[in-house]
């Protein structure tokens, strides 16, 4: 079957949404002044103050963009005049992005107050419902938006424009009814140059649908690139990848203190608030924090920066607060704090399949914290899970990290079969005098233990490392039972006898 001109060739379920915050600069500052008031944003930088934009209430009273502020106030005495605020716009932009993240992760900041969302990850049946939900959430935050849905970014933008002009909240331009819907839209919605619009009007074209029905070759020959570009947009053939917003900026909070701060408590209070906010934001992206960047600026110009990493990505506010507050308490603040900055380093949350019969650490964060505290008590080199090293020299082992997961351990323990009691070594071994008859120990005398040998087992000779210069060792072991004392290990080396330890 021959495909009709203007029909979409790609029938995959790609879809985009454009969230459009009309008069974004005004809405950004209006959030503070509340609803139900006529508000206008004015430009005071010129010799004469003029209205940049206004809300619907003000417009109803005759206020319109471009008129002097004085005139606007005369027309609407209740008019609330606001000045543009970069900080308010930044905050509103963040709110917009943050809230949109609750819907999809792929978002482009197309312009001030305009977001383009890639809906490819969302089921089509939920697009419209989710769009209304997002609109409601933003309304709650003081931002009034319209949302356009379409199969390409350009068509979604067109749908958003249509929603703006039509006074509806969500406008869905479905592929199967695209031409019919475009028939309802005036040319001005396509945001083309006035020259092209005028030319099309003179041709007798009133709607975008009528334009989309024209043949591409005819448009190319008569209207050139601008016409072709519009035709491609309207027919859904103009696709572009989204320039996804860098979300890192969302995961940062900072506070400049208006006064010098010497105490830790207020800092902890602010830190807790920051952490809760950032946790919420990171959670909306479906990720978790793998590290926290902490920066304190001091009144003397110095600063303290630290990257605090977590054993595994987490979004547990309590864990994150403990991590940061623990660090805050670990160093001395030599000057007053003037600014605090906190940034979360996001990462994919841990998702691992545990062994069916295995086990693991219940709370890795708590374990890491315990380790940290234990290291403070006993030293950092004395904690670990003992593992044998590649040597036959007795007593050598190394400390390995405790595995976070334990495999199935129900069967027999690995390693050599175990017989006999365990050996407990004396820290450095005791120099010992040993009476020997026919090469067999008879009596042992040392500062720790002295006694008569009533039973003996040995000698057990061993040696090694002769292939390493200066590390050669050789020893002869005897296991002896001393009268009224117990079982001991005696070792004869080239330097004499040593009471190495006892069996227990």
């Amino acid at each position, binding site marked *: 079957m021959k495909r009709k001109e203007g029909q979409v060739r790609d029938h995959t379920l790609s879809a985009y949404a454009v969230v459009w915050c009309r008069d974004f600069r005004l809405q950004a500052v209006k959030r503070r002044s509340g609803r139900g008031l006529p508000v206008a944003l004015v430009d005071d930088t010129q010799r004469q103050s003029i209205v940049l934009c206004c809300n619907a209430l003000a417009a109803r009273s005759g206020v319109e963009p471009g008129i002097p502020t004085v005139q606007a106030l005369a027309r609407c005495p209740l008019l609330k005049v606001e000045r543009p605020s970069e900080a308010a716009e930044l905050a509103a932009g963040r709110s917009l992005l943050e809230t949109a993240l609750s819907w999809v992760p792929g978002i482009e900041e197309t312009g001030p107050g305009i977001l383009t969302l890639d809906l490819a990850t969302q089921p089509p049946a939920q697009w419209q419902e989710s769009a209304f939900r997002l609109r409601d959430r933003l309304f709650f935050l003081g931002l009034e938006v319209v949302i356009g849905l379409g199969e390409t970014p350009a068509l979604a933008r067109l749908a958003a424009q249509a929603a703006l002009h039509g006074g509806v909240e969500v406008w869905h331009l479905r592929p199967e009814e695209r031409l019919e819907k475009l028939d309802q839209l005036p040319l001005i919605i396509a945001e083309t140059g006035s020259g092209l619009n005028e030319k099309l009007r003179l041709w007798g074209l009133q709607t975008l649908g009528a334009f989309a029905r024209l043949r591409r070759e005819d448009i190319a020959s008569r209207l050139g690139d601008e016409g072709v570009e519009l035709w491609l947009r309207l027919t859904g053939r103009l696709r572009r990848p989204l320039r996804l917003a860098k979300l890192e900026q969302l995961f940062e909070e900072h506070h400049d203190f208006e006064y010098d701060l010497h105490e830790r408590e207020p800092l902890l209070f602010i830190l807790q608030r920051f952490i809760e906010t950032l946790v919420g934001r990171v959670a909306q992206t479906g990720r978790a924090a793998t590290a926290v960047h902490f920066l304190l600026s001091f009144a003397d110009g110095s600063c303290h920066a630290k990257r605090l990493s977590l054993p595994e990505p987490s979004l547990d506010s309590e864990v994150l607060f403990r991590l940061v507050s623990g660090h805050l308490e670990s160093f001395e603040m030599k000057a007053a704090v003037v600014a605090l900055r906190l940034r979360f380093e996001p990462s994919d949350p841990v998702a691992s399949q545990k062994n069916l019969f295995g086990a693991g650490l219940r709370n890795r964060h708590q374990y890491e914290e315990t380790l940290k505290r234990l290291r403070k008590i006993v030293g950092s080199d004395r904690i*670990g899970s003992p593992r044998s090293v590649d040597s036959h020299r007795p007593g050598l082992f190394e400390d390995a990290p405790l595995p976070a997961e334990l495999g199935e*351990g129900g069967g027999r323990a690995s390693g050599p079969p175990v017989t006999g*009691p*365990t050996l407990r070594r004396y820290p450095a071994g005791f120099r010992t005098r040993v009476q020997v008859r026919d090469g067999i120990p008879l009596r042992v005398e040392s500062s720790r233990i002295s006694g008569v040998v009533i039973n003996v087992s040995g000698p057990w000779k061993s040696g090694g490392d002769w292939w390493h210069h200066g590390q050669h060792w050789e020893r002869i072991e005897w296991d002896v039972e001393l009268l009224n004392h117990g*079982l001991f290990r005696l070792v004869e080396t080239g330097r004499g006898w040593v009471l190495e330890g006892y069996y227990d």
Partner: protein
Amino acid sequence: MPVTGAAKIDALESLRKQLGRQIKSGTELLQEREQKGICLVTGLDGLDETPGGGLPRGQLTEIIGRGPSRGLGVVMAALLARARGEGRYVMLLDVGAGFSIESFPEGDLESLLRVGCDSAKQAVEALDVATRDENFHLFLLDGRDCEPSDWKSVRTQQWYRILNQLRQREAVAVLFARSEVTGATKHRLEVVSRLALGDLHQERLVILSRTQFQPVRHFTEEKAGALRAG
């Protein structure tokens, strides 16, 4: 006005009625624990046959061997093996540097975290920190090389804090020592059997089956103090 014993009991009864089931008597708690099977079964006949049937959860148990070669190390190794078999982590607070890796099967050490300590005091401090961690259910404090006077520097409150933490997590702590250590311990066993040279080549299970435990009673904090001072 002096308060009589009967008045105290009445006041307590009235308080209990007001608070409903929020407070429980010691007997009730004991019964509850017995019903819940609140002891950690070790698989060691000698230990499991003692009153309570194993190592009581939420408690510190002292296992005493008055001198070397009583078999405390074998008991420790058995507890480690049992914990590994159940896939649980164990923390060993090792006073001194006497740990010998060749005495344990490699696999049993997988779930063991060893903390080397210089002194009894340091080990108890470490135990105080460690018992707050929910990842470990069994804590072994190896104080076999400590002198009775070494425990003197440990504050009594610290023992009770540890007990409280153990109780909260229902974890088990076992203190291996040469003599009684603290009056805070309610469960104390003495290993009375001795090892002989022939045991060096004997299967551990056989050694364990011959190990004899005997409950040690009536050891108070005062006695502990007197012992340390003595």
